[in-house]
Protein backbone atom coordinates (compact mmCIF):
# COMPACT_ATOMS: atom_id res chain seq x y z
CA UNK A 1 0.00 0.00 0.00
CA UNK A 2 1.24 3.48 -0.78
CA UNK A 3 2.48 5.62 2.09
CA UNK A 4 1.37 8.75 0.27
CA UNK A 5 -2.03 10.33 0.69
CA UNK A 6 -2.97 12.72 -2.13
CA UNK A 7 -3.28 16.37 -1.24
CA UNK A 8 -0.90 16.48 1.73
CA UNK A 9 2.28 17.71 0.05
CA UNK A 10 3.32 21.34 0.61
CA UNK A 11 7.10 21.09 0.53
CA UNK A 12 7.16 22.66 4.00
CA UNK A 13 8.46 20.85 7.06
CA UNK A 14 5.57 19.42 9.12
CA UNK A 15 5.05 20.76 12.64
CA UNK A 16 4.55 17.23 13.98
CA UNK A 17 6.79 14.25 13.23
CA UNK A 18 5.57 10.68 12.75
CA UNK A 19 5.27 8.58 15.92
CA UNK A 20 7.61 5.94 14.53
CA UNK A 21 11.23 6.60 15.50
CA UNK A 22 12.54 5.26 12.17
CA UNK A 23 10.67 7.81 10.03
CA UNK A 24 12.06 11.21 8.98
CA UNK A 25 9.74 13.64 7.14
CA UNK A 26 11.35 14.30 3.76
CA UNK A 27 10.20 17.91 3.61
CA UNK A 28 12.82 18.94 6.20
CA UNK A 29 15.50 18.64 3.51
CA UNK A 30 14.09 21.18 1.07
CA UNK A 31 12.51 23.84 3.25
CA UNK A 32 14.33 27.19 3.04
CA UNK A 33 12.43 28.66 6.01
CA UNK A 34 13.44 25.72 8.19
CA UNK A 35 17.09 26.43 7.37
CA UNK A 36 16.73 29.90 8.92
CA UNK A 37 15.41 28.26 12.10
CA UNK A 38 18.28 25.78 12.08
CA UNK A 39 20.80 28.63 11.88
CA UNK A 40 19.33 30.16 15.04
CA UNK A 41 18.74 27.00 17.04
CA UNK A 42 21.70 24.87 15.97
CA UNK A 43 24.49 26.81 14.27
CA UNK A 44 24.19 29.91 16.45
CA UNK A 45 22.80 27.89 19.37
CA UNK A 46 23.96 25.91 22.38
CA UNK A 47 26.22 23.42 20.65
CA UNK A 48 29.88 23.14 19.73
CA UNK A 49 30.99 23.34 16.11
CA UNK A 50 34.24 22.02 14.67
CA UNK A 51 35.90 24.77 12.61
CA UNK A 52 39.45 23.48 12.15
CA UNK A 53 42.55 21.89 13.61
CA UNK A 54 45.52 23.75 15.00
CA UNK A 55 47.76 21.90 12.49
CA UNK A 56 46.15 24.07 9.78
CA UNK A 57 47.81 27.12 11.34
CA UNK A 58 51.12 25.68 12.59
CA UNK A 59 53.20 28.89 12.73
CA UNK A 60 52.82 32.19 14.55
CA UNK A 61 50.82 34.51 12.31
CA UNK A 62 49.17 31.69 10.35
CA UNK A 63 45.44 32.10 9.85
CA UNK A 64 42.50 30.56 8.07
CA UNK A 65 39.03 31.91 7.46
CA UNK A 66 35.93 29.77 7.80
CA UNK A 67 32.18 30.17 8.16
CA UNK A 68 29.71 29.04 10.79
CA UNK A 69 26.43 29.22 8.91
CA UNK A 70 26.64 32.75 7.49
CA UNK A 71 28.96 34.03 10.22
CA UNK A 72 32.52 34.68 8.95
CA UNK A 73 35.31 33.47 11.24
CA UNK A 74 39.01 34.26 11.44
CA UNK A 75 41.19 31.61 13.08
CA UNK A 76 44.69 32.86 13.91
CA UNK A 77 47.77 31.77 15.85
CA UNK A 78 49.11 34.54 18.06
CA UNK A 79 52.65 35.40 19.15
CA UNK A 80 51.92 33.51 22.36
CA UNK A 81 51.26 30.40 20.21
CA UNK A 82 47.58 30.43 21.19
CA UNK A 83 45.05 29.76 18.43
CA UNK A 84 42.05 32.07 18.71
CA UNK A 85 38.81 32.28 16.77
CA UNK A 86 37.44 35.76 16.04
CA UNK A 87 34.49 37.08 14.11
CA UNK A 88 36.05 38.12 10.80
CA UNK A 89 34.73 41.63 11.06
CA UNK A 90 36.38 44.96 11.85
CA UNK A 91 35.14 46.33 15.18
CA UNK A 92 34.74 49.78 13.63
CA UNK A 93 32.14 49.55 10.87
CA UNK A 94 31.91 45.78 10.47
CA UNK A 95 33.96 45.42 7.30
CA UNK A 96 35.12 41.87 6.53
CA UNK A 97 38.66 41.98 7.90
CA UNK A 98 40.54 39.15 6.16
CA UNK A 99 39.54 38.03 2.66
CA UNK A 100 42.11 35.28 2.06
CA UNK A 101 41.25 31.67 2.76
CA UNK A 102 44.58 31.21 4.54
CA UNK A 103 47.98 32.80 4.92
CA UNK A 104 50.42 34.36 7.32
CA UNK A 105 50.25 37.92 8.67
CA UNK A 106 52.14 40.08 11.14
CA UNK A 107 48.85 41.78 11.92
CA UNK A 108 45.39 42.19 10.39
CA UNK A 109 44.65 45.53 8.77
CA UNK A 110 41.19 46.69 7.76
CA UNK A 111 41.68 48.65 4.51
CA UNK A 112 38.54 50.72 5.08
CA UNK A 113 39.87 53.11 7.77
CA UNK A 114 43.22 51.39 8.43
CA UNK A 115 42.34 49.93 11.80
CA UNK A 116 45.13 47.54 12.71
CA UNK A 117 44.68 44.44 14.85
CA UNK A 118 47.45 42.38 16.38
CA UNK A 119 47.43 38.58 16.09
CA UNK A 120 45.82 38.26 19.52
CA UNK A 121 42.96 40.48 18.38
CA UNK A 122 43.90 43.68 20.22
CA UNK A 123 43.31 46.95 18.36
CA UNK A 124 46.90 48.13 17.87
CA UNK A 125 46.27 51.31 15.89
CA UNK A 126 43.38 53.40 14.55
CA UNK A 127 44.36 56.62 12.72
CA UNK A 128 42.63 59.82 13.81
CA UNK A 129 41.36 58.48 17.11
CA UNK A 130 41.69 61.92 18.78
CA UNK A 131 38.56 62.93 16.90
CA UNK A 132 36.61 59.77 17.77
CA UNK A 133 33.45 59.76 19.91
CA UNK A 134 33.88 60.87 23.55
CA UNK A 135 33.42 57.35 24.94
CA UNK A 136 35.93 55.70 22.55
CA UNK A 137 38.55 53.58 24.29
CA UNK A 138 41.01 51.72 22.08
CA UNK A 139 41.18 48.75 24.48
CA UNK A 140 37.45 48.17 24.04
CA UNK A 141 37.70 47.64 20.31
CA UNK A 142 39.72 44.45 19.97
CA UNK A 143 38.41 41.75 17.66
CA UNK A 144 35.52 39.83 19.17
CA UNK A 145 36.45 36.27 20.12
CA UNK A 146 34.07 33.36 20.04
CA UNK A 147 33.89 30.97 22.96
CA UNK A 148 36.47 28.38 21.91
CA UNK A 149 37.82 25.10 23.20
CA UNK A 150 40.12 22.43 21.80
CA UNK A 151 40.40 18.66 21.87
CA UNK A 152 43.82 17.34 20.72
CA UNK A 153 44.14 20.34 18.42
CA UNK A 154 40.59 20.13 17.10
CA UNK A 155 39.15 23.65 17.31
CA UNK A 156 35.54 24.01 18.39
CA UNK A 157 33.46 27.17 18.84
CA UNK A 158 30.02 28.00 20.11
CA UNK A 159 27.86 31.11 19.92
CA UNK A 160 25.29 29.81 22.42
CA UNK A 161 24.91 31.16 25.95
CA UNK A 162 24.12 27.81 27.59
CA UNK A 163 26.44 25.45 25.76
CA UNK A 164 27.73 22.78 28.15
CA UNK A 165 31.50 22.47 28.68
CA UNK A 166 33.22 20.68 25.79
CA UNK A 167 34.18 17.65 27.89
CA UNK A 168 30.59 17.12 28.93
CA UNK A 169 29.29 17.74 25.39
CA UNK A 170 31.68 15.17 23.91
CA UNK A 171 30.74 12.57 26.53
CA UNK A 172 32.74 9.52 27.57
CA UNK A 173 32.70 7.45 24.40
CA UNK A 174 33.73 9.92 21.68
CA UNK A 175 37.24 10.60 23.08
CA UNK A 176 38.14 6.87 23.06
CA UNK A 177 37.94 6.79 19.25
CA UNK A 178 38.59 10.45 18.47
CA UNK A 179 41.96 10.40 20.24
CA UNK A 180 43.09 7.41 18.14
CA UNK A 181 41.78 9.10 15.01
CA UNK A 182 43.84 12.21 15.79
CA UNK A 183 47.04 10.17 16.08
CA UNK A 184 46.84 9.71 19.83
CA UNK A 185 48.12 13.16 20.73
CA UNK A 186 46.79 15.48 18.01
CA UNK A 187 50.30 16.36 16.78
CA UNK A 188 49.29 16.41 13.14
CA UNK A 189 50.82 17.91 10.00
CA UNK A 190 48.52 19.23 7.28
CA UNK A 191 49.02 17.57 3.87
CA UNK A 192 46.42 19.59 2.01
CA UNK A 193 42.77 19.95 1.11
CA UNK A 194 40.17 18.60 -1.22
CA UNK A 195 37.26 21.03 -1.27
CA UNK A 196 33.87 20.28 -2.69
CA UNK A 197 30.45 21.82 -3.08
CA UNK A 198 27.48 19.50 -2.79
CA UNK A 199 24.03 20.44 -3.98
CA UNK A 200 22.54 18.85 -0.91
CA UNK A 201 20.95 19.87 2.36
CA UNK A 202 23.45 19.72 5.23
CA UNK A 203 21.36 17.07 6.96
CA UNK A 204 21.32 14.95 3.84
CA UNK A 205 25.11 15.24 3.64
CA UNK A 206 25.44 14.42 7.30
CA UNK A 207 23.02 11.51 7.19
CA UNK A 208 25.08 9.78 4.53
CA UNK A 209 28.70 10.83 4.89
CA UNK A 210 29.53 9.16 8.16
CA UNK A 211 28.55 5.63 7.59
CA UNK A 212 26.11 3.56 5.67
CA UNK A 213 25.81 -0.09 4.81
CA UNK A 214 28.55 -1.13 2.42
CA UNK A 215 26.13 -1.97 -0.37
CA UNK A 216 26.79 1.37 -2.07
CA UNK A 217 30.51 0.92 -2.38
CA UNK A 218 31.26 -1.80 -4.90
CA UNK A 219 34.97 -1.12 -4.54
CA UNK A 220 34.87 -1.99 -0.84
CA UNK A 221 33.52 -5.39 -1.77
CA UNK A 222 35.91 -5.83 -4.65
CA UNK A 223 38.76 -5.09 -2.27
CA UNK A 224 37.27 -7.46 0.30
CA UNK A 225 37.08 -4.63 2.84
CA UNK A 226 33.75 -5.72 4.25
CA UNK A 227 34.89 -8.90 5.90
CA UNK A 228 35.84 -7.42 9.26
CA UNK A 229 33.87 -7.00 12.41
CA UNK A 230 33.03 -3.71 14.00
CA UNK A 231 31.05 -1.81 16.54
CA UNK A 232 28.95 1.32 16.76
CA UNK A 233 29.10 2.39 20.38
CA UNK A 234 26.42 4.97 21.07
CA UNK A 235 27.20 8.39 22.35
CA UNK A 236 25.44 11.40 23.80
CA UNK A 237 24.25 14.61 22.15
CA UNK A 238 23.72 13.08 18.73
CA UNK A 239 27.35 12.08 18.19
CA UNK A 240 28.17 8.79 16.55
CA UNK A 241 31.25 6.59 16.74
CA UNK A 242 32.13 3.64 14.55
CA UNK A 243 35.10 1.32 14.74
CA UNK A 244 35.52 -1.39 12.14
CA UNK A 245 38.13 -3.95 11.27
CA UNK A 246 39.44 -3.78 7.73
CA UNK A 247 40.89 -6.97 6.43
CA UNK A 248 43.85 -6.10 4.22
CA UNK A 249 43.12 -7.08 0.64
CA UNK A 250 45.50 -9.84 -0.38
CA UNK A 251 45.73 -10.77 -4.05
CA UNK A 252 42.14 -9.81 -4.71
CA UNK A 253 43.20 -9.30 -8.31
CA UNK A 254 41.29 -6.04 -8.56
CA UNK A 255 44.23 -3.69 -8.38
CA UNK A 256 47.19 -3.68 -10.74
CA UNK A 257 49.11 -1.73 -8.13
CA UNK A 258 47.93 -2.92 -4.70
CA UNK A 259 50.61 -0.90 -2.88
CA UNK A 260 47.95 1.82 -2.70
CA UNK A 261 46.04 -0.07 -0.05
CA UNK A 262 48.94 -1.19 2.15
CA UNK A 263 48.60 -0.73 5.87
CA UNK A 264 51.83 0.92 6.99
CA UNK A 265 51.05 1.88 10.57
CA UNK A 266 47.30 1.48 10.90
CA UNK A 267 46.11 -1.51 12.88
CA UNK A 268 43.68 -3.45 10.65
CA UNK A 269 41.70 -4.34 13.78
CA UNK A 270 40.91 -0.64 14.06
CA UNK A 271 41.30 -0.06 10.31
CA UNK A 272 38.32 2.23 10.03
CA UNK A 273 37.51 4.83 12.68
CA UNK A 274 34.67 7.27 12.17
CA UNK A 275 33.61 9.99 14.57
CA UNK A 276 30.63 12.08 13.66
CA UNK A 277 30.10 15.07 15.90
CA UNK A 278 26.68 16.66 15.91
CA UNK A 279 25.59 18.61 13.97
CA UNK A 280 27.70 18.03 10.85
CA UNK A 281 31.36 17.13 11.33
CA UNK A 282 32.64 13.81 10.06
CA UNK A 283 36.17 12.64 10.88
CA UNK A 284 37.69 9.48 9.50
CA UNK A 285 40.78 7.40 9.87
CA UNK A 286 40.71 4.81 7.14
CA UNK A 287 43.83 2.68 6.78
CA UNK A 288 46.65 5.26 6.95
CA UNK A 289 44.44 8.18 5.89
CA UNK A 290 43.66 10.81 8.54
CA UNK A 291 40.83 12.95 7.22
CA UNK A 292 38.91 15.71 9.01
CA UNK A 293 35.92 17.11 7.10
CA UNK A 294 35.17 20.73 7.94
CA UNK A 295 31.66 21.35 6.69
CA UNK A 296 29.67 24.53 6.11
CA UNK A 297 25.88 24.64 5.79
CA UNK A 298 25.57 27.30 3.07
CA UNK A 299 21.82 27.13 2.54
CA UNK A 300 19.01 24.61 2.59
CA UNK A 301 20.38 23.12 -0.62
CA UNK A 302 24.13 23.77 -0.65
CA UNK A 303 26.75 22.21 1.60
CA UNK A 304 30.47 22.92 1.27
CA UNK A 305 33.01 20.50 2.72
CA UNK A 306 36.74 20.98 3.14
CA UNK A 307 38.33 17.54 3.33
CA UNK A 308 41.60 18.17 5.19
CA UNK A 309 44.19 15.38 5.21
CA UNK A 310 46.97 14.97 7.73
CA UNK A 311 50.16 13.11 8.54
CA UNK A 312 51.55 12.75 12.05
CA UNK A 313 54.51 14.92 13.05
CA UNK A 314 56.59 11.85 13.90
CA UNK A 315 56.04 10.09 10.57
CA UNK A 316 59.04 8.96 8.51
CA UNK A 317 59.30 10.42 5.02
CA UNK A 318 58.30 7.06 3.55
CA UNK A 319 55.16 7.02 5.65
CA UNK A 320 54.30 10.60 4.68
CA UNK A 321 54.60 9.67 0.99
CA UNK A 322 52.35 6.65 1.59
CA UNK A 323 49.75 8.79 3.34
CA UNK A 324 49.85 11.33 0.49
CA UNK A 325 49.24 8.62 -2.11
CA UNK A 326 46.51 6.92 -0.12
CA UNK A 327 44.85 10.22 0.81
CA UNK A 328 44.94 11.43 -2.80
CA UNK A 329 43.20 8.38 -4.23
CA UNK A 330 40.84 6.56 -1.91
CA UNK A 331 38.33 8.73 -0.07
CA UNK A 332 36.60 12.01 -0.73
CA UNK A 333 34.93 13.38 -3.86
CA UNK A 334 37.63 12.01 -6.18
CA UNK A 335 38.34 8.79 -4.32
CA UNK A 336 38.22 5.45 -6.06
CA UNK A 337 36.42 3.65 -3.28
CA UNK A 338 33.87 6.17 -2.09
CA UNK A 339 33.06 8.82 -4.70
CA UNK A 340 29.56 7.31 -4.74
CA UNK A 341 28.85 9.30 -1.60
CA UNK A 342 29.02 12.53 -3.54
CA UNK A 343 26.61 11.26 -6.17
CA UNK A 344 24.24 10.00 -3.48
CA UNK A 345 24.14 13.31 -1.56
CA UNK A 346 22.75 15.01 -4.64
CA UNK A 347 20.32 12.23 -5.55
CA UNK A 348 18.98 12.10 -2.00
CA UNK A 349 18.43 15.83 -2.09
CA UNK A 350 16.50 15.62 -5.35
CA UNK A 351 14.54 12.58 -4.23
CA UNK A 352 13.54 14.17 -0.94
CA UNK A 353 11.50 16.84 -2.72
CA UNK A 354 8.60 14.39 -2.64
CA UNK A 355 5.89 13.66 -0.08
CA UNK A 356 6.25 11.19 2.74
CA UNK A 357 9.00 9.96 4.98
CA UNK A 358 12.52 8.61 4.64
CA UNK A 359 12.41 5.34 6.49
CA UNK A 360 15.28 3.55 8.22
CA UNK A 361 15.01 -0.24 8.20
CA UNK A 362 18.15 -2.25 8.87
CA UNK A 363 18.60 -2.85 12.57
CA UNK A 364 15.29 -1.28 13.64
CA UNK A 365 13.84 -3.49 16.38
CA UNK A 366 11.29 -1.11 17.90
CA UNK A 367 9.15 1.61 16.33
CA UNK A 368 8.67 3.48 19.59
CA UNK A 369 12.12 3.32 21.18
CA UNK A 370 15.60 3.89 19.80
CA UNK A 371 17.73 0.80 19.80
CA UNK A 372 21.14 1.17 21.39
CA UNK A 373 22.33 -2.23 20.25
CA UNK A 374 23.73 -1.75 16.78
CA UNK A 375 25.69 -4.08 14.59
CA UNK A 376 28.37 -2.90 12.21
CA UNK A 377 26.22 -2.49 9.12
CA UNK A 378 22.97 -1.31 10.76
CA UNK A 379 21.66 1.98 9.46
CA UNK A 380 20.01 2.82 12.76
CA UNK A 381 23.10 4.66 14.00
CA UNK A 382 21.68 7.77 12.38
CA UNK A 383 18.53 7.71 14.50
CA UNK A 384 19.88 9.06 17.82
CA UNK A 385 21.20 12.09 15.91
CA UNK A 386 17.81 12.61 14.30
CA UNK A 387 16.17 12.35 17.71
CA UNK A 388 18.58 14.95 19.09
CA UNK A 389 17.88 17.21 16.09
CA UNK A 390 14.11 16.82 16.52
CA UNK A 391 14.29 17.84 20.17
CA UNK A 392 16.62 20.80 19.57
CA UNK A 393 14.35 22.06 16.79
CA UNK A 394 11.24 21.57 18.93
CA UNK A 395 9.35 19.20 16.64
CA UNK A 396 6.81 17.09 18.53
CA UNK A 397 6.00 13.52 17.64
CA UNK A 398 2.44 12.43 16.88
CA UNK A 399 0.68 11.81 20.17
CA UNK A 400 3.37 13.64 22.18
CA UNK A 401 2.14 16.36 24.55
Amino acid at each position, binding site marked *: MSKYQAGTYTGEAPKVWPAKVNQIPKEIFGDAALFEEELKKIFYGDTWHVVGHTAEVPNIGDFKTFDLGRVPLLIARGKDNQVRVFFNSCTHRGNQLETSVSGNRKEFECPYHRWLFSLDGALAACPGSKEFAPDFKQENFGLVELKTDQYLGLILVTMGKNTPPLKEWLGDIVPLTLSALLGGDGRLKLLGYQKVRYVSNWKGYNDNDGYHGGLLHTAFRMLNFQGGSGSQPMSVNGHWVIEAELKPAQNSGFLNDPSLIDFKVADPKRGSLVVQLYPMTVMVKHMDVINLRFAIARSHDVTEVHYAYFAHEDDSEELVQHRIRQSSNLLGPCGM*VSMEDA*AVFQRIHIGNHTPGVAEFQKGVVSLSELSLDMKQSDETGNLPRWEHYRKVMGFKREGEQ
Partner: protein
Amino acid sequence: MSPVSEALSSTSTTDKAAKALLPLDDFTWNSWSAMETQWRVERLLSRYVACIDEDDLENWPEFFTLDTCRYEIITRENVERGMPLALMFCTSRGMLVDRIVSLREANIYPQRWYRHIISNVLIQSVDAECLQVQSNYVVLQTRRNGQTDIFSAGKYLDRIVLSKGELKFSEKRVVVDTHRVDTLLVAPI
Protein backbone atom coordinates in the same frame (compact mmCIF):
# COMPACT_ATOMS: atom_id res chain seq x y z
CA MET B 1 64.57 19.70 8.53
CA SER B 2 62.30 16.90 9.68
CA PRO B 3 61.43 14.14 7.20
CA VAL B 4 57.87 15.42 7.13
CA SER B 5 58.91 18.95 6.22
CA GLU B 6 61.28 17.64 3.59
CA ALA B 7 58.58 15.55 2.03
CA LEU B 8 56.25 18.53 2.05
CA SER B 9 58.73 20.88 0.47
CA SER B 10 59.83 18.58 -2.35
CA THR B 11 58.56 19.71 -5.72
CA SER B 12 58.32 17.82 -8.94
CA THR B 13 60.58 18.51 -11.89
CA THR B 14 57.77 20.20 -13.82
CA ASP B 15 57.42 22.86 -11.14
CA LYS B 16 61.05 23.81 -11.47
CA ALA B 17 60.70 24.01 -15.24
CA ALA B 18 57.64 26.20 -14.94
CA LYS B 19 59.70 28.84 -13.17
CA ALA B 20 62.09 29.22 -16.12
CA LEU B 21 59.92 30.56 -18.90
CA LEU B 22 62.58 30.65 -21.56
CA PRO B 23 62.09 32.24 -24.95
CA LEU B 24 62.65 29.01 -26.79
CA ASP B 25 61.95 29.91 -30.39
CA ASP B 26 64.56 27.94 -32.19
CA PHE B 27 65.93 24.51 -31.43
CA THR B 28 66.33 21.05 -32.84
CA TRP B 29 65.08 18.02 -30.97
CA ASN B 30 65.53 14.49 -32.25
CA SER B 31 66.15 15.95 -35.69
CA TRP B 32 62.84 17.84 -35.56
CA SER B 33 62.79 21.59 -35.95
CA ALA B 34 61.15 23.74 -33.28
CA MET B 35 58.08 24.12 -35.49
CA GLU B 36 57.77 20.41 -36.10
CA THR B 37 58.26 19.62 -32.43
CA GLN B 38 55.57 22.14 -31.50
CA TRP B 39 53.24 20.58 -34.05
CA ARG B 40 53.88 17.07 -32.73
CA VAL B 41 53.34 18.15 -29.12
CA GLU B 42 50.04 19.80 -30.03
CA ARG B 43 48.99 16.64 -31.85
CA LEU B 44 49.79 14.61 -28.73
CA LEU B 45 47.73 16.92 -26.53
CA SER B 46 44.82 16.89 -28.97
CA ARG B 47 44.82 13.11 -29.11
CA TYR B 48 45.06 12.95 -25.30
CA VAL B 49 41.96 15.09 -24.69
CA ALA B 50 40.03 13.41 -27.50
CA CYS B 51 40.64 10.10 -25.72
CA ILE B 52 38.98 11.48 -22.58
CA ASP B 53 36.22 13.45 -24.29
CA GLU B 54 35.23 10.49 -26.47
CA ASP B 55 35.15 8.24 -23.38
CA ASP B 56 37.86 6.02 -24.78
CA LEU B 57 39.39 5.78 -21.31
CA GLU B 58 40.70 2.25 -21.66
CA ASN B 59 43.33 3.74 -23.96
CA TRP B 60 44.14 6.65 -21.65
CA PRO B 61 47.04 4.87 -19.85
CA GLU B 62 48.69 4.34 -23.27
CA PHE B 63 49.58 8.04 -23.37
CA PHE B 64 52.05 7.48 -20.53
CA THR B 65 55.44 5.78 -20.47
CA LEU B 66 55.27 2.16 -19.44
CA ASP B 67 58.12 1.80 -16.96
CA THR B 68 57.82 4.84 -14.73
CA CYS B 69 55.24 7.54 -14.97
CA ARG B 70 53.47 10.01 -12.79
CA TYR B 71 50.01 11.52 -13.19
CA GLU B 72 48.69 14.03 -10.74
CA ILE B 73 45.72 16.36 -10.44
CA ILE B 74 46.51 18.85 -7.70
CA THR B 75 44.89 22.13 -6.74
CA ARG B 76 46.70 25.40 -7.22
CA GLU B 77 45.73 26.19 -3.63
CA ASN B 78 47.69 23.20 -2.32
CA VAL B 79 50.64 23.88 -4.68
CA GLU B 80 50.94 27.53 -3.64
CA ARG B 81 50.90 26.53 0.02
CA GLY B 82 53.57 23.86 -0.57
CA MET B 83 51.17 21.05 0.27
CA PRO B 84 51.42 17.75 -1.62
CA LEU B 85 47.89 16.38 -1.32
CA ALA B 86 46.31 15.76 -4.73
CA LEU B 87 42.88 15.03 -6.12
CA MET B 88 44.31 12.08 -8.07
CA PHE B 89 47.84 10.80 -7.79
CA CYS B 90 49.11 7.86 -9.81
CA THR B 91 52.74 6.80 -9.63
CA SER B 92 52.67 3.78 -11.92
CA ARG B 93 51.01 2.53 -15.09
CA GLY B 94 49.15 0.05 -12.88
CA MET B 95 47.57 2.85 -10.89
CA LEU B 96 46.41 4.54 -14.11
CA VAL B 97 44.72 1.32 -15.18
CA ASP B 98 43.21 0.90 -11.70
CA ARG B 99 41.57 4.31 -11.95
CA ILE B 100 39.83 3.36 -15.16
CA VAL B 101 38.78 -0.10 -13.94
CA SER B 102 37.40 1.55 -10.82
CA LEU B 103 35.27 4.11 -12.65
CA ARG B 104 34.03 1.49 -15.11
CA GLU B 105 33.25 -1.31 -12.68
CA ALA B 106 32.98 0.03 -9.16
CA ASN B 107 32.00 3.67 -9.03
CA ILE B 108 28.49 5.09 -9.27
CA TYR B 109 28.10 8.62 -10.60
CA PRO B 110 25.80 10.57 -12.87
CA GLN B 111 26.58 10.36 -16.55
CA ARG B 112 28.13 13.53 -17.96
CA TRP B 113 30.25 14.60 -20.87
CA TYR B 114 33.61 16.32 -20.67
CA ARG B 115 34.86 18.73 -23.34
CA HIS B 116 38.48 19.81 -23.04
CA ILE B 117 39.73 23.01 -24.63
CA ILE B 118 43.53 23.42 -24.71
CA SER B 119 45.50 26.53 -25.57
CA ASN B 120 48.80 28.36 -25.07
CA VAL B 121 50.92 25.28 -25.68
CA LEU B 122 54.41 26.40 -24.71
CA ILE B 123 57.54 24.29 -24.91
CA GLN B 124 59.50 25.57 -21.95
CA SER B 125 62.67 23.59 -22.07
CA VAL B 126 64.35 21.00 -24.21
CA ASP B 127 67.07 18.54 -23.39
CA ALA B 128 68.28 15.30 -24.89
CA GLU B 129 65.72 13.21 -23.04
CA CYS B 130 62.62 15.29 -22.67
CA LEU B 131 60.49 18.32 -23.39
CA GLN B 132 58.89 20.35 -20.62
CA VAL B 133 55.61 21.71 -21.91
CA GLN B 134 53.01 23.95 -20.30
CA SER B 135 49.51 24.47 -21.64
CA ASN B 136 46.20 25.85 -20.38
CA TYR B 137 43.04 23.80 -20.27
CA VAL B 138 39.35 24.28 -19.62
CA VAL B 139 36.99 21.38 -19.08
CA LEU B 140 33.34 21.99 -19.87
CA GLN B 141 30.93 19.56 -18.26
CA THR B 142 27.53 18.78 -19.73
CA ARG B 143 25.03 17.04 -17.52
CA ARG B 144 22.24 14.73 -18.53
CA ASN B 145 19.76 17.58 -18.53
CA GLY B 146 21.78 19.35 -21.23
CA GLN B 147 23.27 22.06 -19.03
CA THR B 148 26.91 22.91 -19.67
CA ASP B 149 29.15 24.41 -16.98
CA ILE B 150 32.83 25.14 -16.63
CA PHE B 151 33.92 22.19 -14.52
CA SER B 152 37.62 22.91 -14.24
CA ALA B 153 40.20 25.43 -15.41
CA GLY B 154 43.93 25.13 -14.98
CA LYS B 155 47.17 24.17 -16.62
CA TYR B 156 49.04 21.07 -17.71
CA LEU B 157 52.71 20.75 -16.81
CA ASP B 158 53.98 17.91 -18.95
CA ARG B 159 57.25 16.06 -19.25
CA ILE B 160 57.22 14.48 -22.67
CA VAL B 161 59.68 11.88 -23.92
CA LEU B 162 60.21 9.94 -27.12
CA SER B 163 59.51 6.26 -26.52
CA LYS B 164 59.90 3.82 -29.42
CA GLY B 165 59.26 6.62 -31.88
CA GLU B 166 56.14 7.92 -30.11
CA LEU B 167 55.71 10.90 -27.82
CA LYS B 168 54.56 9.88 -24.33
CA PHE B 169 54.02 11.60 -21.02
CA SER B 170 56.51 10.49 -18.42
CA GLU B 171 54.94 13.01 -16.08
CA LYS B 172 51.70 14.94 -16.31
CA ARG B 173 50.82 17.37 -13.59
CA VAL B 174 47.38 18.99 -13.81
CA VAL B 175 47.33 22.11 -11.65
CA VAL B 176 43.69 23.02 -11.04
CA ASP B 177 42.61 26.62 -10.45
CA THR B 178 39.05 25.44 -9.74
CA HIS B 179 39.93 24.03 -6.35
CA ARG B 180 36.36 23.62 -5.15
CA VAL B 181 35.14 20.54 -6.97
CA ASP B 182 31.55 20.51 -8.17
CA THR B 183 30.19 17.36 -6.49
CA LEU B 184 32.79 14.86 -7.67
CA LEU B 185 35.66 14.23 -10.04
CA VAL B 186 35.51 10.87 -11.77
CA ALA B 187 37.50 10.88 -14.99
CA PRO B 188 41.02 12.15 -15.51
CA ILE B 189 41.61 15.66 -16.84
